[in-house]
């Protein structure tokens, strides 16, 4: 049955049957040779000599054609009821196609052929009417076959025959001739009145058996040689096998005869089958000849005699119309409708003349419409019930015939030879529908406008065929009907409708698959002997444990899957979004590069606007998966589930997503178990959101240093003040931010955090997640993991670089369970790229929400192809990836132990203690470089204060001094070891100085292996790498001694002298102090005094020490009890600093480049400040304080740096420029040269006689390093009681060389008793009054009252 050809009613059907051991390709080859004869001219048909068979033979010189069509399927048995109604549906001829080689004998071939034919067509079946077997000779040297030895019903076509085609044509013509002859025989038997009764007995009668008919007059004529072997004449018809065919009715009745029917002379008395007599005749009492005429019409149409056919059809229509035999009437109409097409084809000229104002096909169309409506109504009759399947088939085919008519005219661009050709022969080929599918809408419209047939009208016609009655159809017929509909819809460009019908086709096919599987399953259980099953039977016992696995036939699966994919595609689901790849294929370099092309939308994160009908899509996906499962094609199941998950997950419900995911997982594992090598690509979008290398722990972090820092010795630049140029000053934060490139160490594992994304509602399982790197080889392990639903999930991956060099981290290789690993690269994005992406994104977003394309054209992949903007500007620029430098293997040091308990130090202020730290080299590399740096809590605030620059010069100096000269921790690099061999332990001693305010500190050890053995002579590296080890120390500093009120006092003779006198009776301590204070020349000395307070709970012994270059060192010690203050006094020899020394500015200890003098002091003020500064510095060099725990062993320094020096103290401390000594002397006589006696004095008081002349001698000594011209001013108070000679002011002293002295003498008489003060001021000549004073002297005179 081939419903796709319009003129199927006019085609003689010939079944091609492979016979014997013919191979498929050779059968195809010869079959196509035969198939090339689509029609045979009537003139070529050889006439049959027999008279009674000549009825359908063509007239000589007739111009028509016989049309042939070939099938390779036998008709289904359920159709046998139609054998009279529609002979064109049956194979009228049967051709066996066989090949023969040397070994075969022709009789074997014939036997095979006959056996096959008997199998296909049970005995008693009317058709085929003629048979033949073509034996094609295969090889040339086939000499064994005797060509002359012909068997009946077998034709040998020798291989050496030149033009086989002509021969085959002749053979076919012979066959047709036979068929036409048999037509006559058939008609003969029906033309009898009894035959006519048979014909009218039921709606679809069968040709009665010869046994049931009386012998005709010419029954003595020889039997047809080509008839199938009939059963013996006496046997009953095999009713059991033909049970579906309505049995002929047994009523004898005289019928009114038609014009051309010969009278039926005989009645037959012995009628079979009384069992069915009960049934009433639905047709009525009188049988008309309408059906017979229609049958004749059918046969004439087949015989190519259209004129005769049209005559008989017209007769039949006339008769069948009035007693309404709807089905036959409709069939006659169909036949009538076919005739014009056949005629038109034969004449091969263009427009048929019969059309006037109407379209030429309108008439045919009307007829068919009539037939269709009649078929559809036919079932309402009470006889209809039995015939539902047949009626539905007829109806469907009529509708398809009509649709084909319209479609052929439409697609052939009008009524013409093309259309006829198509209708007669080709039908609807698949290429045809495909070409139409690719046509644009405009082109399809053009076809419509040319022909005047709109697509919608064809579709409307075709839609009539679709309805519940399809279920009546026999399965194969149903499938072919649905297929025809689908391809017609497809050819019309109605893809949604095509998909709709295709779903039904699938339903049919899959139903067959499922049912067949159930049957074979049961059959397998019964019939043992297949593969494993047989073995199990032998073993017997363990049968239950042996899995029975059928070898599925995969034939056809692919086509089914293709249909499924097509349906899904029409509905906007890309079932190939996830590719199936061969699981054995490895990722090679070429593929890697190809895969770096990234999916734009996934990067951009722009969501596509949805296409399609979500509800339908989900339903279709479910069905697609069910189909794939039923086949079964497990990789496709997985592909479908995963593809739809990927593309539809935004609209899917949770349950669906979970279901699909588990289905996919199950299918994949099944496929794997079954040894399927195919696997699915990675599907779950783009899993990697970001990647980041975790810096190694600080202990392991290598820090890159240039080699040059080693050669440059520690310069005078003090690193602590100048900032971070020094390599060994530790600052973790700075080093992290400063170094953009992180460093890794060879052979040491590092960690990497990848953030994975799971947009689905289920936990996504990844069977492996591995790093994808290039450059240095690494050692890493792929890890399986589960990404929680709907989340971003960070994962830590550990890897180990095996060599030094640059490591590029491209991304991750991800593998889903049962899938293929896929690399996802993660390039670093540049600004340019970001910008490009942003532009692209905005372009896409701009289009979202606008519907430029509607319907199927708006499916995502269609749209993507059409977007022009920016699509071409794909950058060819290479991608950049995360890069890390891997350095050579580094040694590793650890702190084995320290001398601290709990890492804490407790100190008194100023105390120094030591910490012993033991390091151990735990690596296999030696360490040849070891440096310690320290940090403590006082450094940072001080540095900050310095950096702010708000401090005065003086404070700055103090702060800097504190930082540089009194660090909390110190370490002597020279005395401590530098080399640590592998496994060795070294002890490093760190000094610790107690400094108030320090609460914590840290030691940092930098170490490295610099001087490596080099394997090659390459240039030594410019850099080396160190590692650091930190050890935090808690510091507690007790503040126990406070110094304050520093003072420097002059020795004034009158006050001090009595104190200094030693008294043997005084206690020892007093004597010691007096001894201390006793100096030779009080003018050269001053007294340094300071108060020390003990704020702590323990008494301390405080010692102050004086070390001056020109005086012997002394020390004074005092015990300071807790809570009390002790004043400590020590004499200090005056000193004078050189002018150059003093004029230096206050130094800054750091080498900060610009020290802007912020002070706006005058030069004089500045000078005095400098003097203060320098003298103070000098003083602190001379005087040092120390303390010692009373009764303990702890000792330390006592800092004086808190103390300030005032101008007065400075004056006292500094040696005067000119020293003035004043004496009172008396002479024995007036003569100036006489002996001079000093006036008696005591305790600094001079006691001259009143009213007697004494001489006031003033000795001026120039102590300055330069010569001075000095002037002396004297004053005597009270002046009114003093008589003196000369002037008191501006007494010239003269030029004094350094160290030179000069004496000025003045006679004085005190004229009253009492106290007098004499002072002398030495001025430098020529300078202003207030600044010129360079020296001073004083004298106290006490004049006792003498008793008169």
């Amino acid at each position: 049955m081939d419903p796709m050809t319009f003129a199927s009613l006019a085609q003689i059907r010939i079944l091609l049957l492979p016979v014997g051991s013919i191979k498929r390709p050779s059968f195809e080859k010869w079959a196509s040779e035969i198939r090339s004869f689509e029609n045979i001219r009537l003139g070529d048909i050889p006439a049959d000599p027999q008279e009674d068979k000549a009825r359908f033979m063509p007239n000589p010189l007739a111009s028509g054609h016989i049309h042939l069509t070939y099938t390779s399927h036998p008709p289904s048995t359920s159709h046998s009821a139609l054998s009279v109604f529609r002979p064109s549906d049956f194979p009228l001829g049967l051709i066996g196609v066989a090949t023969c080689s040397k070994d075969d004998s022709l009789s074997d071939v014939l036997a095979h052929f006959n056996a096959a034919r008997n199998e296909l067509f049970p005995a008693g079946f009317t058709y085929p009417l003629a048979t033949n077997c073509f034996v094609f000779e295969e090889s040339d040297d086939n000499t064994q076959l005797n060509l002359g030895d012909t068997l009946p019903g077998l034709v040998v076509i020798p291989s050496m025959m030149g033009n086989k085609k002509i021969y085959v044509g002749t053979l076919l013509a012979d066959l047709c001739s036979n068929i036409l002859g048999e037509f006559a025989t058939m008609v003969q038997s029906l033309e009898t009145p009894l035959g006519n009764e048979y014909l009218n007995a039921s709606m679809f009668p069968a040709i009665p058996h010869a046994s049931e008919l009386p012998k005709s007059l010419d029954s003595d004529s020889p039997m047809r040689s080509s008839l199938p072997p009939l059963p013996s004449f006496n046997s009953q018809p095999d009713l059991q096998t033909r049970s579906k065919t309505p049995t002929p009715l047994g009523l004898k009745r005289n019928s009114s005869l038609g014009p051309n029917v010969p009278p039926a002379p005989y009645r037959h008395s012995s009628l079979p089958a009384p069992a069915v007599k009960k049934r009433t005749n639905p047709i009525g009492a009188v049988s008309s000849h309408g059906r017979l005429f229609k049958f004749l019409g059918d046969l004439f149409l087949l015989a190519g005699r259209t004129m005769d056919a049209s005559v008989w059809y017209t007769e039949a229509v006339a008769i069948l119309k009035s007693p309404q035999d709807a089905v036959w009437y409709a069939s006659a109409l169909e036949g009538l409708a076919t005739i014009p097409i056949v005629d038109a084809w034969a004449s091969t000229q263009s427009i048929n003349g019969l059309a006037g104002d109407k379209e030429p096909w309108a008439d045919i169309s009307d007829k068919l419409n009539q037939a269709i409506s009649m078929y559809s109504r036919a079932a309402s009759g009470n006889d209809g019930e039995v015939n539902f399947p047949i009626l539905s088939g007829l109806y469907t085919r009529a509708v398809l015939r009509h649709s084909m008519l319209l479609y052929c005219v439409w697609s052939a661009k009008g009524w013409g030879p093309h259309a006829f050709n198509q209708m007669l022969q080709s039908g609807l080929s698949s290429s045809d529908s495909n070409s139409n599918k690719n046509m644009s809408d405009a082109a399809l419209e053009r076809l419509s406008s040319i022909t005047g047939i709109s697509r919608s009208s064809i579709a409307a016609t075709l839609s009539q065929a679709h309805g519940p009655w399809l279920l009546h159809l026999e399965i194969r017929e149903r499938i072919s009907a649905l297929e025809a509909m689908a391809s017609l819809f497809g050819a019309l460009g109605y893809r949604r409708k095509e998909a709709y019908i295709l779903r039904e086709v699938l339903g049919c096919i899959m139903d067959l698959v499922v049912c067949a599987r159930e049957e074979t399953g049961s059959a397998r259980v019964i019939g043992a002997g297949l593969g494993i099953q047989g073995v199990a039977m032998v073993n017997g016992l363990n049968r239950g444990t042996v899995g029975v696995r059928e070898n599925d036939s995969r034939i056809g699966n692919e086509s089914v899957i293709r249909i499924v994919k097509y349906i899904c595609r029409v509905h906007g689901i890309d079932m190939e979004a996830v590719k199936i790849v061969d699981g054995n294929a490895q990722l090679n370099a070429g593929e890697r590069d190809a895969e770096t092309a990234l999916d734009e939308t996934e990067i951009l994160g722009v969501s596509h606007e949805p296409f399609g009908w979500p509800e339908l899509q989900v339903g279709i996906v479910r069905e697609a998966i069910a189909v794939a499962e039923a086949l079964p094609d497990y990789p496709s199941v997985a592909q479908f589930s995963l593809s739809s998950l990927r593309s539809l997950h935004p609209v899917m419900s949770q349950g669906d997503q979970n279901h699909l995911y588990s289905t996919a997982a199950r299918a994949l594992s099944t496929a794997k178990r079954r040894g399927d090598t195919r696997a699915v690509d990675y599907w779950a979008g783009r899993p990697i959101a970001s990647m980041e290398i975790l810096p190694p722990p600080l202990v392991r972090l290598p820090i890159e240093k240039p080699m040059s820092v080693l050669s440059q010795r520690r310069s005078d630049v003090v690193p602590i003040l100048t900032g971070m140029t020094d390599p060994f000053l530790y600052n973790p934060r700075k080093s992290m931010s400063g170094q953009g490139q992180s460093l890794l160490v060879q052979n040491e594992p590092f960690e990497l955090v990848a953030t994975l994304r799971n947009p689905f509602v289920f936990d996504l399982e990844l069977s492996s997640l591995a790093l994808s790197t290039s450059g240095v080889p690494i050692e890493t392990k792929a890890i399986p993991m589960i990404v929680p639903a709907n989340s971003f999930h960070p994962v830590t991956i550990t890897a180990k670089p095996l060599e030094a060099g640059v490591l590029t981290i491209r991304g991750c290789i991800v593998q889903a369970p049962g899938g293929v690993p896929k690399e996802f690269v993660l390039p670093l994005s540049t600004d340019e790229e970001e910008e490009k992406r942003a532009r692209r994104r905005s372009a896409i977003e701009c289009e979202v929400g606008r519907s430029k394309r509607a319907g199927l054209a708006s499916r995502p992949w269609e749209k993507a192809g059409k977007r022009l903007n920016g699509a071409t500007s794909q950058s060819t620029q290479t991608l950049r990836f995360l890069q890390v430098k891997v350095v050579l293997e580094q040694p590793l040091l650890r702190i084995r132990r320290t001398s601290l308990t709990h890492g804490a130090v407790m100190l008194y202020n100023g105390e120094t203690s030591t910490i012993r730290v033991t390091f151990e080299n735990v690596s296999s590399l030696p360490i040849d470089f070891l440096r310690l740096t320290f940090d403590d809590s006082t450094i940072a605030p001080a540095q900050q204060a310095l950096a702010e620059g708000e401090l005065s010069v003086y404070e700055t100096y103090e702060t800097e001094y504190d930082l540089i000269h009194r660090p909390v921790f110190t370490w002597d690099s020279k005395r401590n070891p530098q080399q640590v061999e592998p496994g060795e332990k070294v002890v490093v001693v760190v000094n610790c100085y107690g400094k108030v305010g320090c609460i914590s500190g840290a030691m940092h050890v930098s170490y490295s292996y610099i001087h490596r053995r080099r394997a090659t002579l390459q240039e030594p590296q410019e850099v080396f790498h160190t590692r650091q080890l930190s050890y935090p120390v808690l510091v507690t500093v007790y503040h126990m001694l406070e110094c304050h009120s520093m003072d420097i006092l002059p020795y004034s003779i009158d006050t001090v002298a009595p104190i200094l006198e030693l008294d043997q009776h005084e206690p020892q301590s007093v004597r010691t102090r007096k001894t201390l204070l006793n100096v030779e020349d009080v003018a050269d000395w001053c007294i340094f005094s300071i108060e020390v307070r003990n704020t702590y709970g323990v008494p301390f012994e405080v010692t102050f020490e004086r070390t001056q270059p020109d005086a012997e060192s002394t020390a004074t010690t005092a015990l300071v009890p807790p809570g009390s203050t002790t004043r400590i006094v020590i004499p200090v020899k005056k000193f004078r600093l050189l002018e150059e020394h003093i004029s230096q500015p206050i130094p800054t200890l750091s080498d900060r480049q610009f020290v802007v003098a912020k002070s706006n002091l005058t030069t004089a003020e500045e000078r005095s400040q400098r003097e203060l500064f320098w003298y103070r510095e000098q003083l602190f060099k001379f005087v040092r304080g120390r303390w010692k725990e009373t009764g303990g062993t702890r000792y330390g320094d006592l800092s004086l740096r808190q103390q300030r020096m005032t101008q007065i103290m400075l004056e006292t401390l500094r040696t005067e420029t000119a020293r003035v000594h004043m004496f009172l002397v008396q002479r024995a006589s007036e003569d100036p040269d006489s002996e001079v006696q000093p006036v008696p004095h005591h305790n600094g008081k001079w006691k001259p006689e009143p009213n007697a002349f004494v001489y006031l001698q003033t000795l001026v000594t120039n102590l300055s390093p330069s010569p001075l011209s000095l002037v002396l001013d004297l004053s005597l108070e009270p002046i009114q009681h003093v008589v003196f000679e000369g002037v008191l002011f501006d007494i010239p002293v003269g030029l004094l060389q350094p160290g030179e002295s000069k004496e000025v003498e003045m006679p004085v008489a005190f004229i009253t008793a009492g106290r007098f003060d004499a002072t002398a001021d030495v001025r430098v000549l020529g300078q202003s009054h207030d600044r010129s004073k360079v020296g001073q002297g004083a004298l106290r005179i006490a004049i006792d009252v003498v008793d008169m």
Partner: protein
Amino acid sequence: MSHHLFLLSPSDTPLYELTHYSSKPVQTTTSPLASNLPSWSTSAFAGTLTALSGASSATQAHHIQGGPVRMGGGKDRHVIQMIANASLDVIEEVMRKENAMYLKSVDKFNEWTVSAFITPGNMKFVLLHESRNDDGIKAFFVDVWELYVKTMLNPFHTAHTPIRSPVFDARVRASAKKYL
């Protein structure tokens, strides 16, 4: 008798669906061929075929009294959606040639007749109905269009936003009651 209304966006996504059961009796006669259908297989795929070919609704119609309970309402709904979707093929073709917004009885499939209404924004209103009621359907479509335009006045509403407004729903239902 039931009506099924779908408002389809230009990308074939339904924005609104309505099933309206009217009290009017079904007056169409189903084809006699559709009666007495065999139940030839019980596999799931046969079910699909039965549903898609319209057989399930046909049997339902014939065995309405005392017959099997309406089986697979969801399935039928799926079929109706399939039919509506498939009819877009015809609608798209016809709308290209005709100027009218209202395309009456543009397609017929199984027992359903499809009428459509195309807005200038390429929204398609598709109505599946069983009996002819051209004027009523036209009036109904115009009503729905007005309601739709009012919904579209919302600046946050695009051509692809599903319509979830209860007011819209209630008014469409009222209109359906009035005209269908």
